[in-house]
């Protein structure tokens, strides 16, 4: 089974629109939205949720005021300054390290598991999809990403599907690290700007660090063809396979506004043809 993870270094490069287009083209796959922090793929695929599950990613300290003697040891030990002078734990500051719980002489601090989000198994017009929603201001997005990818894999194995198409999170930090480990390949979607170059380099280094083969396509390439070429050259020097360029095309936005993929709006367009060619090259690379 293969897994392709689409990443970008930064949001707004067109990752999700592109994966929507691939979802239309790919056969026998499972869709997976690993951008749990700001999941958007469901806006294009309109999933019908078949199962939903709570996600419990960690515990938070909670002081039982009846048992508390206000000795202050917890405040002294807490490195996050999460405990107020009134001995209330600020859930936004609490790291869930449990140090206060362990050392409280009165055993006055509880450490219940907290629900940080939900994850879903869904049906879409493109096939099954695994996705999630991390609660606002919650931690542990890396853990939720790992869980979503594992569930997508289980589903693919059960249904004998040979490809997982994963929409990855932006950045190079914890959630992205959790989204690329063990993938067959990552596709980096870049844009021809100075920041696009910078972000591509960091995310290509990340893929190399975790030894995942990387591919690249430059979106909105005609906004600055020179920069597009420079990004491709830099990427190639880092061992990244270049797949092609997609022009700036408001068709992506028009399709998104209607909750459709590019191909459902206008598959015969020049941009449609370009994306189809990129997809075919991509499949060949994945199956090599």
């Amino acid at each position, binding site marked *: 089974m293969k897994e392709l993870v689409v990443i970008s270094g930064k949001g707004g490069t067109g990752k999700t629109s592109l994966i929507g287009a691939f979802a239309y083209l790919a056969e026998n796959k499972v869709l997976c939205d690993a951008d749990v922090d700001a999941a958007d793929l469901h806006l294009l695929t309109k999933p019908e949720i078949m199962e939903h599950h709570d996600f419990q990613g*960690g515990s938070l300290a909670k002081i039982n005021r009846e048992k508390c003697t206000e000795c202050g040891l917890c405040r002294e030990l807490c490195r996050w300054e999460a405990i107020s002078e009134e001995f209330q734990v600020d859930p936004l500051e609490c790291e869930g*390290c449990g140090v206060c719980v362990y050392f409280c002489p009165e055993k006055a601090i509880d450490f219940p598991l907290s629900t940080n989000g939900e994850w879903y198994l869904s049906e879409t017009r493109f096939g099954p999809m695994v996705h999630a929603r*991390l609660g606002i*201001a919650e931690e542990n997005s890396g853990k939720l990403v790992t869980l979503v990818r594992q569930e997508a894999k289980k589903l693919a194995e059960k249904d004998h599907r040979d490809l997982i198409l994963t929409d990855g999170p*932006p950045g190079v930090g914890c959630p992205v*690290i959790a989204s690329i480990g063990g993938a067959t390949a990552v596709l980096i979607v870049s844009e021809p700007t100075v920041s696009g170059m910078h972000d591509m380099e960091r995310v290509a280094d*990340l893929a190399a660090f975790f030894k995942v083969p990387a591919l690249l396509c430059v979106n909105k390439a005609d906004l600055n063809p020179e920069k597009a070429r420079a990004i491709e050259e830099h990427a190639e020097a880092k061992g990244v396979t270049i797949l092609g360029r997609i022009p700036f095309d408001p068709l992506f936005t028009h399709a998104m*506004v209607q909750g459709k993929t590019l191909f459902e709006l206008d598959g015969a367009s020049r941009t449609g043809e370009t994306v189809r060619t990129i997809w075919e090259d991509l499949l060949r690379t994945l199956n090599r």
Partner: protein
Amino acid sequence: MIISIASGKGGTGKTTVATNLALSLDPPVRVLDCDVEEPNAHLFLKPRFEASHTVTTPVPSVDEGKCSLCGKCGEICQFKAILVIGQTVLTFPEMCHSCGGCVEVCPEKAITETGRELGIIEEGRRDGVEFVHGRLKVGEAMAPPLIRKVRAYEKADGLTIIDAPPGTSCPVITSMKQTDFVILVTEPTPFGLHDLELAVGAVETLGIPCGLVINRSDLGDDRVREFARTKQIPLLMEIPFDRGIAEAYSRGIPFVEERPEWKEKFRALYQSIQKIVH
């Protein structure tokens, strides 16, 4: 005043607003780029860097001579960053959240802390604008401690602008909490709206006043504006899609330099925020 700029979603124009706003105002103005995973503001402000520091976080170091292999360190650690296996103590510094629990719990005082490098902080300036950013080491997962170090450069005088990372989880919260105002930058598309709703939720959790800047305001639909109206979030500015602005961006040029008339609009933006905050 401290203004943070957030968006829920990446690529909406946070850095564009942060840098153009900074270049439109009178000093003292400082820009703190807290998007430590992908700092970009320096590509547009082009500051002259004057100082650079390595940022470390404490992680355990075990003196095997003193260790009695009791296993208490592994018991207290919630992050699976230290454990006793057979006759050795293994540490996994990348998993460590630096809570210090293992140091406290060790009966033999066999654990001390050493610094593990998270990334660097660079300081510079460009004309009247002071600039600081953090740069997370590639392969490193712990952004919030580095963000806290960048935010240590806030000052009470003039304006501090914080360019926050995308999303609504810990790095964003660390970047925007205890700021006076949040500018939410969005685009008028279904993705923009969806992520804006999440970002507004995060801002409400923190109880900070906020306002909206709509970028590429003529691409997409009207639902973002409707949402702002029902939520009574003031619409502070709209920036239309303009191929000239997009091309200037692609070359790393803040567009107020090519369209100086926009400086006035950014000043007006700041004035309306001042009115809301005071």
